[in-house]
């Protein structure tokens, strides 16, 4: 993707995640739009750009919140890398079922963070965390990911990117 697109995404992702999504919150759960964006970037650009975008967005979220610097950067980087590998080798981007991978990656990230916090601070209530936050948020994020993917396809972003890749290969 072009650098200015990344810049716009990076500038908007924090306020959108923190402010714009609040009215969409259901019972305190709101979709993790930043994760969905990382997943889609990974899918359409590949593992390297996906990992880099994930790390940048995650680091920005770490700086903007009060979490340990690098925790979300590390987990989002992994998500970008994995979605890039999946997009390149396994998944058909046109199939809407791929959001199930987003749901799975969201759950995996939630568990990774919970495990890290358990190791660092101890006594994390896993059951309530999984049932009360990780699973509902993953499902909600999957739904938003589906909408985002639909918008991306509608705007012909995928076609433009594929054309650019083909030009590069030639």
């Amino acid at each position: 993707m072009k650098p200015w697109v990344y810049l716009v995404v990076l500038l908007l992702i924090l306020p959108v995640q923190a402010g714009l999504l609040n009215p969409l919150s259901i019972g305190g759960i709101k979709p993790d739009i930043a994760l969905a964006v990382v997943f889609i970037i990974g899918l359409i650009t590949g593992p390297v750009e996906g990992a880099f975008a994930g790390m940048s967005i995650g680091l920005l979220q770490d700086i903007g919140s009060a979490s340990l610097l690098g925790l979300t950067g590390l987990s989002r980087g992994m998500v970008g890398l994995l979605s890039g590998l999946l997009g390149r080798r396994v998944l058909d981007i046109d199939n809407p079922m791929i959001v199930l991978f987003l749901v799975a990656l969201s759950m995996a990230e939630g568990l990774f963070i919970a495990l890290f916090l358990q190791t660092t601070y101890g006594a994390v209530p896993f059951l309530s965390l999984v049932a009360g936050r990780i699973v509902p948020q993953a499902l909600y994020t999957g739904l938003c990911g589906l909408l985002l993917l639909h918008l991306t396809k509608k705007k012909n972003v995928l076609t433009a990117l594929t054309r650019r890749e083909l030009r590069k290969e030639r």
Partner: protein
Amino acid sequence: MPGFVSKHRKFIVIFFLFVVLFWLLTVQVKNGRFLFLERPVLAVSGFVERIITRSFSAVESVGDWYDFLVSTDRENRRLKTEVERLRLNSALLNELLFENERLREALSFKKLAPPLAVMVQVIGKDLSPASSTITVDKGSDDGIGKDMAVITSDGVVGKVHTVLPNTAKVLLLTDPGNTVAVMVQRNREEGLLEGKLVNCALKYVSYYADIQEGDLLVTSGLDGIYPKGLPVATVMKVTKQEAVAFQTVVAEPVVRFSRLEEALVLKK
């Protein structure tokens, strides 16, 4: 070897970045959180969050205005009755206050002064999956400072973490880096309440301490941040294990953070 490196150069850079991030984490676990770039990021995101929140409020207020017109008369009559009842209550409370002050003076107790408070509006919530924070629309220009208590009429919300002239970041009770000195209201057993993302855990509570499900935890005032006696959380689950010196106590904050729109910051 050079061929392998040049072929996989990008992957090697990514791997190196992962290692750096992991190293950063281990350093922070040992020495505390880095505050690198925190203020500029809060300034930019706070500015855009404020615009987003105000735009939503403007749209919502049009709908609210119609509702307001419809229900004003009914509300007015209800409020008049309420005012009469509160006047009576206030007179009774004033009597009790004077009596309390006289008795305090007689016992040479320190006079209680209600702390000054600033009303703030929440403009951003839950930025990262690994922490629980909110952004509010007032900062150092309104006298808000680091580590000031943030409360609502229900109880404690958290404390101020980072302050800019017109924005501040508040660490909620459920943030893993937040700790509050509390006591059980029923029997004054003390402990430290630590955030666990969805709820909180009471730490350092002796195996023999009498703590029951449903107990209300209030601030003990020992941390020097929160005034004594504010409701903090309700005990949800108590687990005792043989051969473990402390009990595991899980508590749920009394304030519903998902519905939080305004709060009070208590000035020191």
